[in-house]
């Protein structure tokens, strides 16, 4: 009986100690990890979209609550005006969710660029959505509103040959982004004033 008690006490004490330690460390490193993930996973897409901005878009970011979750917005300053933001949206691709960064100019509601951040598409086929600049380029300059569809579905987006599902996923992500943008625009414009 005594031995059993000892076992229980030692294991409980050890578990709670390690649990507490890890929880504390997690809290401590959470912000750093988030920054690192932004820098290395989403960073390349953000910097590509907001190329030539006068500020660091990853440092100048803010969050807006959308329902249960928070959405991050990355601010790009051009010609002294903070009118461009990039934010992430997702669509269902062939192998899973496709994360898509979309940059939009708040002044004229036009897309300044898109870039795939995370995906699990087939290498060499669906992955071209990320690597082929021609696919992303066709979104540039389009107004970020309404539905985006590939040509097969009666839309305007040229799908990547052999990767229709991936292209549709990207189109869905842009559509979602348009929805989010339309509903959040007043709040966005308000927040952007703080960066001038």
């Amino acid at each position, binding site marked *: 009986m005594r031995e059993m008690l*000892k076992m229980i006490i030692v294991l409980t004490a*050890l578990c709670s100690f390690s649990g507490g330690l890890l929880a504390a460390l997690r809290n401590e490193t959470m912000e750093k990890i988030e920054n690192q993930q932004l820098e290395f996973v989403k960073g390349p897409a953000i910097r590509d979209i907001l190329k030539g901005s006068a500020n660091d878009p990853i440092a100048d970011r803010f969050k807006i609550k959308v329902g249960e979750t928070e959405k991050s917005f990355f601010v790009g300053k051009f010609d002294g005006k903070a009118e461009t933001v990039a934010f992430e949206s997702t669509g269902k691709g062939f192998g899973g969710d496709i994360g898509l960064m979309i940059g939009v100019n708040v002044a004229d509601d036009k897309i300044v660029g898109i870039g795939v951040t995370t995906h699990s598409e087939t290498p060499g086929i669906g992955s071209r959505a990320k690597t082929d600049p021609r696919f992303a380029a066709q979104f540039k300059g389009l107004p970020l509103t309404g539905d985006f569809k590939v040509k097969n579905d009666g839309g305007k987006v040229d799908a990547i040959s052999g990767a229709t599902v991936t292209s549709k996923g990207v189109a869905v992500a842009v559509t979602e982004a348009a929805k989010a943008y339309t509903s959040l625009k007043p709040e966005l414009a308000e927040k952007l004033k703080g960066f001038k």
Partner: protein
Amino acid sequence: MAKSVTQEFTKGLWKEIPPFRLVLGLCPTLAVTKSVENAIGMGVAVIFVLVGSNVLVAMLRKIIPSKVRIACFIIVVATFVTVVELLMQAYTYPLFLKLGIFIPLIVVNCIPLGRAEAFAYKNGIIPSFADGLGLGIGYAMSLTVLAAVREIFGSGTFYGNQVFGPSFQPFNFMVEAPGAFVCLGLMLCVMNFIGKKG
């Protein structure tokens, strides 16, 4: 017959060098030795875990009941591995992306658990520290040597720097999985040959 601390330390470097002599911890050995950078990263992680878990187990060895010792060891090892994982994510994110699943897998790696069971549970804090450090460094060294061979022949680089001229045709086989087995086998063979002579 207590061996000196120096002996406990140096045995990990040659006599009991983990992947070659004990043939332990092979899964990450084969997987992360594509490049020297990965190997060193993995080696440092293992050194930290091994030293930490050895010292903590040695400290607690009198109060850990022997019936639940393995469970206790696993908790200790897992805690240190998670610490490493979090720190890597926070400070060396690209390395974390490359090593990926092999960092959490240190938990089930035989080396930390094996050293806790075979050494730290029976010895004091200082010898356990020396043991952990020695074996950890031995492990890191083995990974680095293996990775150097594979990287130099497989991609013609060392720590990311070109070593051969542009006419070098990379020996792709070496950076693929079978290359790891062949390379490890050859090294084991060399180690045994030297060991037999000495």
